[in-house]
């Protein structure tokens, strides 16, 4: 469904991604893990063109999206994204946050958008917060609204950029539970995460990045039990 070939990203003098190739199949859940600064987030941000790769191509449904003349906004309509720091629109209520893009971008009527938003907010367990402003919500609630907001565009694939890293420990579970539910509905997901248990339980495949290089990838079971490379072994030894 989405395929990256030989992605390199250079920021000034720093090469953040080095020749990364990876693909994600329809319905697959891929966890991207690795130490801080390994380029995980940059890789994810390349997938929806928030960062333009310096070299390399990205294909979505066989279409190359890294071409100069690609309509980025059109591509992003089909790719949902959830950020570490939520980035909800603070001046809009929960319901407005979730209805905004369907109305403005997809052209849904207000009633249709509201109906859809209410369904999604029920799915993430926030039916009672429709008219609340984001700053009245806990971190976990904010992130669940952010997930509903991304889903409101009915994307084909969802990208998660460390969705639980900014949360208090007791709120991590509620967000991971929503993500698990989403995975079970067959949503294609790419998740940058430090939650190894989530990667083990939910992911179909794990990609391990270190220093901008895709060092190792494979099924969670074999990756966590028998990592092939020394770097992966080091990393897992430190965190598990």
């Amino acid at each position: 469904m989405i395929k990256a070939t030989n992605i390199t990203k250079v920021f000034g003098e720093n090469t953040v991604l080095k020749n990364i190739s990876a693909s994600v199949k329809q319905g697959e859940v891929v966890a991207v893990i690795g130490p801080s600064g390994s380029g995980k987030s940059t890789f994810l941000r390349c997938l929806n063109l928030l960062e333009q790769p310096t070299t390399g191509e990205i294909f979505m449904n066989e279409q190359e999206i890294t071409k100069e003349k690609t309509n980025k906004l059109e591509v992003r309509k089909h790719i949902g994204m959830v950020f570490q720091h939520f980035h909800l629109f603070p001046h809009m209520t929960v319901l407005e946050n979730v209805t905004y893009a369907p109305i403005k971008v997809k052209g849904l009527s207000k009633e249709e958008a509201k109906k859809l938003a209410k369904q999604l907010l029920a799915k993430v367990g926030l039916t009672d917060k429709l008219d609340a402003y984001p700053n009245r919500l806990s971190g976990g609630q904010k992130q669940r609204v952010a997930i509903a907001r991304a889903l409101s565009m009915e994307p084909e694939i969802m990208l998660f950029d460390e969705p639980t890293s900014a949360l208090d420990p007791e709120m991590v579970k509620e967000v991971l539970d929503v993500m698990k539910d989403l995975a079970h509905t067959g949503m294609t997901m790419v998740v940058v995460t430090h939650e190894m248990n989530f990667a083990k339980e939910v992911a179909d495949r794990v990609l391990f990045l270190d220093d901008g290089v895709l060092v190792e990838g494979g099924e969670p079971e074999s990756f966590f039990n028998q990592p092939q490379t020394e770097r992966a072994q080091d990393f897992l030894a430190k965190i598990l």
Partner: protein
Amino acid sequence: MNLDFSQMVPYIPFMLEGIWVTLKFVSMSILVGFILGTILALCKITKLPILKGLADIYTSIFRGTPLILQLMIFYFAVPQLSGYDTSPFLSAILAFGLNSAAYVSEIIRAGILAVDKGQTEAAEALGVPYKPMMINIILPQAFKNILPALMNEFITLTKESAIVSVIGYLDIMRRAQIVGADIYRNFEPLLFAGVIYWIMVYLLTQLGKLVERRLRHSD
């Protein structure tokens, strides 16, 4: 010390008329300054060097020369070039509006840059085009933050509007001078004018507080 307001009494309606005259061009100037200032601010944050350069030059010129000079150019000098007489009213709106736009654009630019970059990314990730993103997401947040600075600019403009008296525009200030010359007493009409300005600014300040409170409802 001999203050005598009784001689001024017949002139009070004449002075009060000045309030409307002043408000008329000040409100128009604020509007021009605000709209043009917003456009200039958007030019300044684009990646297009031409727009950015033009907006910077504009700001530099209008901030770098005295307002009274700009006013006199519009009233006295432009007719000489164009052969078309600019009325005091039009000259005042042009000078104050264009001048204010330079200051407003800097305030708004700072306000936009202060909005978390994540907001832009969140909007982009949802596929929201530039225009609705600016209008619905970035600018409302920017305005909330810069409202005090913006009010300050509007208050300054209201007070500085008194210099239109140099082109003979019959605002509050000019009327005070006329009354002063008529009754051979200057203190009373000037004091009266001062009180009017103070009340206008006071009301403007209250209006600003009201708007600020309404914008804070999401806090």
